[in-house]
């Protein structure tokens, strides 16, 4: 039991002079910090603001759609609301949330490093993000944009009268922040792993962050380029997409989706990692098929670059191109299915505890499965022709990105909250919020599948009466969902003051991040850890976990 002895040697709580939260004080010590843990909290503050702003757009839409007529918003106001909701949620919430909050905080801890490879770059990337956010806020205050987050040409270049250039610049700038973080993560994973932490001993969350970062570095420049082209045409009249001057409006869609399909995986891959950590810990079992999980992540990141044309089945592209993209889209579904099967199989012969993070994880698996299966409908060309640009697609990607990624984000935040803050959250409330999030999500978005199949187009602020019943259901569900999102903010804040103190490893988890005090000291580990085994050693290899006791499990390594 050498591992456990090593664990006991770690103090549960650092002294005030050690804890990263209190080692320095004052506003400047936060705004100029290069500590990855503090920067993660800076990101959390900024992203929470964006979540509220983007959420406000959603609320406005759901209220408007309660009746078929226009009552709350004018046509233009509605168009601006959904554009803003999309832009903020995609680039200022979903893409950054898990990587730059949980990832920033945990990556060095999980691999036994003192910080990221480039601590100052990490801080700069936060400032770039804030600059981008300020531009986005300016766009909103100046009157907004009405192109949809997809910025399709020639609408965006020649016809839209909103602040397209400001919005495009905001997204352009945000991209640099993404790239900076991604480079940092890649280098950190390559260079700063603790002795003994070989690639195939990495926790799956680290693998997921690594793959996400590679996709970010490869895809984001394409977005930057296409935004520059929009700039060139709209600001300087250089014809690129304008058909009247020999341009090709559909070219934009190719470039945009060449980025934006991989972006879907930027949003969902990190949550795969989070869910793997949660499921193994609360099932007290080694993850089923570790190497397949790794290959699935890599396979998704690779093939994810080759399927962009499935967004363009009705754009007039040749049927044969559509079929090629359809085939690749079916192929990329396989690794996602593998992940779902493996999480399920991890539960087999486990010792399952239904703490809040586990409920989030189970909810994730359910919602992600529905989201993934409806992806098969959309990969089928004839069905996609009918349901694309309808609420069916809206439902599909919200199942993946909100039911999936946001549930995983909340689950991960709950799981690592004691490590980040040194406080335990109230378990009962957290379970309640997790259950409510699952059902609220279902009530909001399942009706959208039905109305989409019935033919309700997306981005409509008025609609034929026959769709009203589904819109009413969705709007009612959204109330529950909103409450489920707000509740954790309340009890997390509460726990900062009144929450019980957390021990170093409250969940008896095996990752290196738990082999240091909660919250960790500024240098993460007082003694640099060494790793002597793979992740998730929740039970001895020759037998499963017992039915009741939490031991024996062995940490991946420790500060010994």
């Amino acid at each position, binding site marked *: 039991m050498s591992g456990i002895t090593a664990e006991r040697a770690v103090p549960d709580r650092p002294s005030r002079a050690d804890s990263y939260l209190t080692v320095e004080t004052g506003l400047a010590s936060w705004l100029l910090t290069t500590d990855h843990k503090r920067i993660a909290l800076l990101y959390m503050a900024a992203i929470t603001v964006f979540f509220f702003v983007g959420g406000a757009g959603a609320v406005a839409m759901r209220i408007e759609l309660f009746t078929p007529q226009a009552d709350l918003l004018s046509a233009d106001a509605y168009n601006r609301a959904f554009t803003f909701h999309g832009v903020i949620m995609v680039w200022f919430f979903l893409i950054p949330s898990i990587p730059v909050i949980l990832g920033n905080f945990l990556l060095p801890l999980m691999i036994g490093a003192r910080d990221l490879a480039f601590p100052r770059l990490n801080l700069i990337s936060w400032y770039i993000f804030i600059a981008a956010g300020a531009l986005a806020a300016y766009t909103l205050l100046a009157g907004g944009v009405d192109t949809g987050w997809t910025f399709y040409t020639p*609408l965006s270049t020649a016809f839209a009268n909103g602040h397209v250039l400001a919005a495009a610049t905001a997204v352009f700038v945000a991209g640099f922040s993404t790239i900076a973080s991604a480079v940092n993560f890649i280098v950190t994973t390559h260079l700063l792993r603790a002795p003994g932490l070989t690639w195939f001993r990495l926790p799956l969350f680290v693998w997921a962050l690594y793959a996400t970062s590679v996709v970010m570095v490869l895809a984001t420049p394409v977005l930057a380029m296409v935004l520059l082209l929009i700039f060139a045409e709209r600001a300087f009249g250089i014809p690129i997409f304008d058909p009247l001057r020999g341009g090709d409006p559909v070219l934009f869609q190719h470039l945009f989706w060449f980025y934006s399909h991989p972006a879907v995986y930027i949003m969902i891959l990190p949550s795969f990692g989070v869910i793997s950590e949660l499921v193994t810990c609360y099932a007290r079992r080694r993850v089923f098929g570790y190497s397949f999980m790794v290959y699935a992540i890599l396979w998704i990141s690779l093939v994810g670059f080759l399927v962009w044309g499935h967004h363009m089945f009705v754009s007039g592209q040749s049927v044969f191109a559509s079929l090629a993209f359809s085939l690749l889209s079916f*192929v990329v579904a396989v690794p996602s299915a593998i992940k779902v099967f493996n999480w399920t199989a991890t539960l087999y012969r486990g010792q399952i505890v239904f703490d809040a993070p586990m409920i989030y994880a189970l909810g994730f698996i359910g919602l992600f*499965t529905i989201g993934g299966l409806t992806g098969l409908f959309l990969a*089928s060309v004839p069905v996609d*022709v009918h349901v694309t640009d309808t609420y069916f697609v809206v439902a599909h990607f919200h199942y993946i990105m909100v039911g999936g990624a946001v549930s995983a984000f909340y689950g991960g935040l709950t799981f690592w909250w004691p490590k980040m803050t040194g406080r335990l959250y109230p378990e009962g409330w957290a379970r309640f919020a997790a259950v409510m999030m699952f059902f609220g999500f279902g009530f909001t978005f399942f009706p959208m599948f*039905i109305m989409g199949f019935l033919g309700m187009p997306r981005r409509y602020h008025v609609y034929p009466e026959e769709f009203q019943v589904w819109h009413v259901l969705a709007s009612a569900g959204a109330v529950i969902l909103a409450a489920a999102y707000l509740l954790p903010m309340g009890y997390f804040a509460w726990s900062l003051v009144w929450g019980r103190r957390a021990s170093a490893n409250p969940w008896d988890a095996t990752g290196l991040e738990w082999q240091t005090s909660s919250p960790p000291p500024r240098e993460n580990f007082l003694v640099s850890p060494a790793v002597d085994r793979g992740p998730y050693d929740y039970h001895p290899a020759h037998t499963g976990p017992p039915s009741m006791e939490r031991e024996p499990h062995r940490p991946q390594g420790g500060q010994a």
Partner: protein
Amino acid sequence: MNRFSLWPQAASEQAARVDLLFIGLLVISGAILLLVAGLLLVFCLRYRRGSSAPRGLLPGFLRRDVEIGWTTGTLFLALFLFWWAGATQLRAKDPPAGALEIHVAAKQWMWKARHPNGAREINALHVPRGEAVRLVMTSQDVIHSFFVPAFRLKQDVIPGRFTEMWFRATEPGEYRLFCAEFCGTDHARMGGTVTVMQPEDYARWAAAQPQEENLAEEGARLFTALGCSGCHAPASAVHAPLLAGAYGRMVHLADGRTIRADEAYIRDSILQPKRDVVAGFEPIMPSFEGLVDQGDLQRLVAYVQSLRGEAAR
């Protein structure tokens, strides 16, 4: 357009095929969902902490074999679904020869249709039941999308380009027409009605519409008015290709390429004649960019298309 239903009306041949595929996908994904949810439920109950279920080592076969098994299983399922969907799509690829050709022009925020006999309508489309109908569509401003849920069909309508879609309606009735691609302020109001009529009714309806010249005839007048005939007429002194029979054939270009003279090619010949120069001719044809609008362009193209018929006769 009934008020409450779980299944959209189906009023075209393609709709029946799409629905079959959709049902197949529902059954398969429903089964997978039940399997996953069932396993989750059973495992969660049986292996909850403190339950007396025996745990211990996983049976040996449950490692690699099972993993490889379900990987190949899902792969084959995916390939099967691809084949089914692909075959369904290919069956509906080309319109039959002699399909009724209706021209559709989209603009912010209305649909304009023009029937072969010159009948025009706005935000409405009348079509005969049982006959193949081919829509040749273009947009005058941004991208729109012609969407008729009851036909399970949708096609983007793009400026500077012709896109096509075709269908054979099976059920008389009135169906909704939507614009599905976001196109600006009044996108949500850019809709209308598709009316499927018995063929006799359609013929009567079309004849009763105010008769206007058809597209090709108007195009013929433009052809003279714009001076095209000065070069392209058989008697012209200028060395320019005769356009009779030009549409649809393979053209040899001066740079060695060979391309089919489709609508896009004719359109390009008018707007950017220097791009594809016909072999054996000087690039003297001026660009009509800015001189002709999208409507004129459609008329000219229709005229050149109609010349095919004369050559064949």
